[in-house]
């Protein structure tokens, strides 16, 4: 079923609520004197939108706006994730010392705009729509990265992000034009119909895919499109770094999965996908996945700035998630969805603790964490240990379960080499995650450090995330069930 423009409006209530929130934030900026209220408005608006996403999940699957967008469980899953990411970012911003100043109206407006763009990325069903949504997210992200106007690193990061993003999206749209030329349509469903039989020129198709991948790869921070990540993550305000590392990455994956699965592949009865015959695409992604996780982990080993370290770790995690992409099975996709939930919990948590410490000490390097557990910061130190060991993938924490499903999907399809590279990477990653834990617990303060205080506001989110990380490491059946149900693409 395909619905026209006006009738579609009733289906995009979550998006409309976000638009409304943006407008209210901008208007309120003119009259409200306490700028924290703006953050609270943004939080409430996003929460409302999240609720309406949950309601919209019940409406039937269909094409919207004459097949520009699609309404299906897969899109709903990602919208929930984006709304939660935005809420966490707003919550962190309210508790951050960096985000104080006169421009909070723009800041929250941009943050919600970026979320809106991500919503569109999750439901785009047309090359044009996909490109516009991705650009929308990128443009708002550039501005958010450069938000710390008087911080040179922030400005530098924004500029690098902009230049890199411009090149990547230019490459992508060039690739898309090839696909349009080969398939004769920009519509995902029609592209599938045109290419599925493998009549198109294989080489041209392969080149088109590689070019398109530049755009997606840049959003998910996969090698070799990852160069911007360390600088941007280091320069941006910490809540924005957390938001980019989870929300923006998940948005990239949403688009990547929808583009390469329903648009380019064909689902068999056994839950395995058939890629366009003759195009050796999965092999390329397999190599990318291995290189991404290895390079991310090896480079992270020598980092001393925690935001930079977590930036490289987020590159490595993009590599892990790509493992699920390579195997062309529903199990792999399910593992990716599950991993994104887990990754949301532990990565936002880790950045939150970095922010808590930076709030008190003004430091983001590892030495600022020395003896954290022994100088009043036992709570953030314990929570950080939970997040970091979860990122490593140790039971009984959620990160282990996430990796377990990924490896299970990989072993199931007998990609033993990839699985081996993956697990050895986990061991390497332990070294740098444990180094932070060591600094917090095994080193003792030398008396010169500033004490770390934990506000109730930040503590609530921190313990919430830590508890979820722990609980999902022991009982995760509901979440894997959700990932299972969400793994359904509407294909007309």
């Amino acid at each position, binding site marked *: 079923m395909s619905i026209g423009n006006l009738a579609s409006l009733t289906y995009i209530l979550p998006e409309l609520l976000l638009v409304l929130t943006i407008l209210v934030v901008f208007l309120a900026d003119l009259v409200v004197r306490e700028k924290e209220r703006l953050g609270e408005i943004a939080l409430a608006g996003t929460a409302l939108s999240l609720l309406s996403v949950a309601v919209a999940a019940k409406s039937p699957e269909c094409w919207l706006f004459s097949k520009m967008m699609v309404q299906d469980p897969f899109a709903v899953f990602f919208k929930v994730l984006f709304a939660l990411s935005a809420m966490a970012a707003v919550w962190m911003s309210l508790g951050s010392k960096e985000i104080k100043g006169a421009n909070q109206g723009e800041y929250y407006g941009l943050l919600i705009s970026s979320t809106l763009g991500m919503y569109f990325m999750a439901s785009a069903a047309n090359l044009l729509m996909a490109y516009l949504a991705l650009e929308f997210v990128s443009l708002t992200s550039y501005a958010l990265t450069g938000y710390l106007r008087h911080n040179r690193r922030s400005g530098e990061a924004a500029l690098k992000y902009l230049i890199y993003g411009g090149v990547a999206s230019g490459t992508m749209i060039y690739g898309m034009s090839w696909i349009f030329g080969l398939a004769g349509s920009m519509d995902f469903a029609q592209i599938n119909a045109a290419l599925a039989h493998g009549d198109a020129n294989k080489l041209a198709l392969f080149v088109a895919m590689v070019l398109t991948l530049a755009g997606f790869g840049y959003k998910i921070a996969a090698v070799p499109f990852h160069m911007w990540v360390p600088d941007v993550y280091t320069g941006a305000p910490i809540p924005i770094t957390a938001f980019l590392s989870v929300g923006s990455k998940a948005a990239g994956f949403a688009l990547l999965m929808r583009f390469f699965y329903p648009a380019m592949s064909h689902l068999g009865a056994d839950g395995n996908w058939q890629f366009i015959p003759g195009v050796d695409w999965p092999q390329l992604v397999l190599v990318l996945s291995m290189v991404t996780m290895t390079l991310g982990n090896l480079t992270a080993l020598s980092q001393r700035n925690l935001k930079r370290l977590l930036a490289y770790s987020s590159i490595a995690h993009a590599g892990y998630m790509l493992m699920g992409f390579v195997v062309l099975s529903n199990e792999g996709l399910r593992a990716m969805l599950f991993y994104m939930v887990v990754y949301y919990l532990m990565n936002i948590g880790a950045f939150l603790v970095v922010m808590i410490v930076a709030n008190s000490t003004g430091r983001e390097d590892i030495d600022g964490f020395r003896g954290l557990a022994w100088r009043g910061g036992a709570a953030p130190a314990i929570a950080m240990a939970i997040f970091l060991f979860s990122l490593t993938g*140790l039971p009984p924490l959620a990160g282990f379960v996430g990796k377990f499903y990924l490896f299970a999907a990989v072993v199931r399809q007998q990609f033993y080499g990839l*699985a081996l590279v993956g697990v050895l990477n986990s061991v390497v990653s*332990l*070294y740098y995650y444990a180094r932070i834990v060591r600094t917090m617990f*095994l080193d003792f303060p030398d008396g010169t450090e500033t004490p770390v205080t934990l506000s109730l506001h930040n503590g609530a989110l921190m313990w919430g995330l830590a508890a979820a990380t722990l609980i999902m490491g022991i009982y995760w*059946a509901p979440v894997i*069930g959700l990932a299972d149900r969400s793994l359904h693409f509407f294909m007309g």
Partner: protein
Amino acid sequence: MDHILTYMTFIPIAGALIVLCLPSNKPDWIRWGAAAATVPPLLMAIWLFVNFDRTKAGFQFVEKAAWIPSFNIEYFVGVDGISITMVLLTALLSFLCMFASFGIEKAVKGYFALFLLLDAAMMGVFVSLDFFLFYIFWELMLLPMYFLIGIWGGPRREYAAIKFFLYTLAGSVLMLLALLALYFHQTPHTFDMTKLMEAHTTYSHNFQVIVWLALFIGFAIKIPAFPFHTWLPDAHVEAPTAISVILAGVLLKMGTYGILRINFGMLPEATAQLSYYCLGALGAFNIVYGALCAMAQKDLKKLVAYSSISHMGYVMLGMAAFTPQGIQGAVLQMFNHGTVTAMLFLLVGVIYDRAHHRDIEGFGGLASIMPVYTGMTALAFFAALGLPGLSAFISEVLVLLGAWQRYPGLTAIAASAVIFTAGYILWTMQRVFLGKANEKYLSLPEISGRELFTLAPLAVIVVVLGFYPKAVLDLTSTSLDSLNALVNKFVL
């Protein structure tokens, strides 16, 4: 006594939670509270010892419940003749080590909470019959161990802790891949160890060999077998006394237990093929190598650590023989090594607490200063040396008798290493206890009542098992005979 194994596993965790709630300024409450939490498991272990049906080869006291049904993961525990010896050992050493830890002054609450968590994880490993559950407990052990060595250890504790962590994780991720490979080989997929054991005939030859080796490396790191042993001396030297006891007494046994339970039980054909090199020859080499290394040590604790490598070599050699004597000797040796090495580490701790060093050359004539201590040490040392009438003699002789029937060459090498063992032990005795009393230590106080309390039960077991090994052999023989028969089907 339904759910007895569940209680034994989870009472320490409950104890850890209670300990965390006790006030930090009452360290004695914490110490006694933690010690109290290890009493019920010990009593239940005694009850198990009495009520265990020695005529059955299968699993007893079995409990089963669904955990994550969508992936067919179960909570499934039970004991047979192999694991019950380890359960007894774990319960006993956990209890005694709590008392050996009463001298800890730094962050008492954290120490005892982590220690109880470690107890629970160790017990969990030995009772798990679901491979996934086994893996969770196996990994769960790493975190408390890392902190216990890293925070409460000696001068190079940080290095030792991370080395232990990295080595063990590297081994266990290989085990993870192996367990996934086994899981997906079954229809329907299952982690149930009893079903995996029944399915041992369905694997192709290459599959068996690869999975066997992946599992073996994981377990060999834990034993530790050359060349994976280098973490052990570091970890032992830096760990606090009670942790060394647990490490040598229980953790090392997990390696050989895993080989017996998983490699032997699930992959008997590969076991029959690979055992000569991987277990027999390597075991004999370990015996000689460990003894020679021990002879070269100046640090008393390092000497005991290397002697562990040597003694665990007997276990490997014994099980590689596929004879009833060999395999029973191996399991008996696991138990005896647990008690004897525990005594040795406790005794080293006693002298270290008094003299604040462990330099073998730095003592001399202690026999005239601390006669009771000397007597106790002599008993432990003679047991380690394999003196007839003490427990380790029986198990070593059984191993050599069993191994002789199949590998006379290896057995000759292993038996000749007894000379080296006698060499390093007698030489150490001479340097530490005999000769002229060292002026510096004339005023050293005699071993205290608390310390004797931790040693006496072990001493009694060492003596009793020297005369009456049937107490343990009766427990193990039925299960081991059936396991041995299974493997022997594939021995050419």
